[in-house]
């Protein structure tokens, strides 16, 4: 009698492989739950901070480039004006010297 019951229980509780549909449902459910948990853990402001950092970095880059352009233009301008002024001064000195020379020879 006891032996029969035991046999009966063994038959009823034998290990059975799950059906493919059950496995698929289980895995899908797990994936959804995992995704929800990850989204809940990620702060909402992170993408915005990332975007703001990119915008800020781009802005700083542009500002730095413009600053460099202005500095270069500034330096070039001062050098150009210096050379111009020096060249005019050479002409002025030459004309003055020629004037004095002509004066000395004439008088």
């Amino acid at each position, binding site marked *: 009698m006891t032996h029969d019951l035991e046999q009966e229980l063994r038959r009823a509780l034998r290990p059975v492989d799950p059906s493919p549909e059950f496995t698929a449902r289980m895995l899908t459910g797990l994936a959804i739950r995992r995704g929800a948990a990850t989204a809940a853990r990620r702060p909402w402001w992170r993408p915005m901070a990332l975007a703001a950092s990119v915008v800020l970095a781009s802005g700083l880059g542009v500002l730095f480039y413009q600053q460099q352009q202005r500095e270069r233009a500034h330096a070039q*301008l001062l050098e150009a004006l210096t050379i111009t002024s020096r060249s005019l001064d050479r002409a002025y*000195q030459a004309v003055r010297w020629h004037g004095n020379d002509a004066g000395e020879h004439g008088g």
Partner: protein
Amino acid sequence: MSCARRSVGWRTLCAASAAACLSSLASGAELRLPAFDSLRAKASDSVVISLDADMLKLAGQFLDPADPGDANARAAIRGLTSIYVRSFSFEKPYQVPSTEIATLRSQLAAPLWQRVVQTHSEADHSDVDIYLAADTEHAQGLVIIVTEPREFTVVSISGAIDLARLHSLQGHLGVPRLPATK
């Protein structure tokens, strides 16, 4: 009414013509400077500066009004539309670039351009030529060609030019005034 309207139209036409003349004079005063590649290759020191209207504006924004040198520079560039400089220094005497100078001089023709200064010093072996493009009242273009035994410089400036102010800049931009040659 119709007479007044005709008068306004006539004035507009005159103003437009004057503006067109001035702009053609200004654009005519802008030269195409040769590259002077042969000089650049042999020069110990070369300065090639091309500042068009946009670059002048950009540089002008960076000038500090509190700094006397910058204030002078700002006043000097007011009204200018371009500055081009080609300056080469050599350690030993160089071959004057006659072809490029001839190309340049061919653009400096009358009636727009007049050679206002031409000096030659036998003692220093130097030449200075100054060409000016001017209407009845204002200088619109200036070209300076300085040829010395170890230095060659060409400066071309267009726009409303104040020669006295440009000359007075020396000694105000951190560069000492040159001693008198004689």
